[in-house]
């Protein structure tokens, strides 16, 4: 299976998510963690970019990091899957390799 990417920086402050999206290949997965979870929000200046990238890339977001930041699932772009820490582990085992966009 393809690569798992993680992004842990806010898309409003850094270009990590941009770079990740532009280099992630079709069939790969992106997991948004820590401040990266803001990239999963709908109705923002970056949500269109993420929505477009979802054609080919599967997006996940880490639930505990969302909750810490006061964000609920109803604010997430539809189609992005919320996972917990066990889900994070599952994702790492199900992908062939891994890249962390710091």
């Amino acid at each position, binding site marked *: 299976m393809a690569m798992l990417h993680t992004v842990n920086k*806010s898309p409003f402050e850094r270009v990590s998510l941009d770079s990740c999206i532009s280099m992630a290949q079709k069939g790969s997965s992106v997991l948004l963690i820590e401040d990266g979870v*803001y990239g999963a929000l709908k109705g923002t200046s970056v949500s269109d970019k993420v929505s477009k990238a979802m054609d080919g890339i599967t997006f996940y977001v880490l639930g505990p990091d969302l909750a*810490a930041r*006061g964000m609920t699932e109803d604010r997430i772009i539809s189609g992005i899957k919320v996972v917990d820490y066990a889900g994070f582990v599952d994702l790492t085992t199900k992908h062939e390799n891994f890249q962390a966009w710091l």
Partner: protein
Amino acid sequence: MAEPWEEENEGTVKKFMFVNRKAPYGTIYALESLEVVLITAAFDQDVSLVFTDDGVFQIKKGQSTAGIGMKNFSPTYRALEGYDIEKLYVDQESLDARGMTAADLIVDVEVLSRQQLADLMNEQDVVMSF
């Protein structure tokens, strides 16, 4: 006789502005800013807080940090009123870009334009950015 530290500049009140531009939890800036704000208020200074860029996330309602094992410091913003810190300003543009409104915030704030914030900033004696 007054102590030396009491004599000099006794009663001087300066205008301090704290500019918060970082999301909470990902870095230590938000929490550190809050610490300095409380210290400044203890010296009876004229304190105002600005939340702009990712700083608007600091005062998002409903933060629940049990899952990440960190302290949720957002209730402290609601306690600022008790320290006579009532000048809280939020940048409209930053809210818009993040799909947020004033209704998402845990404290009463004044939502201002960039130009209004720039004017306020210009009136300060001290500006500290976090």
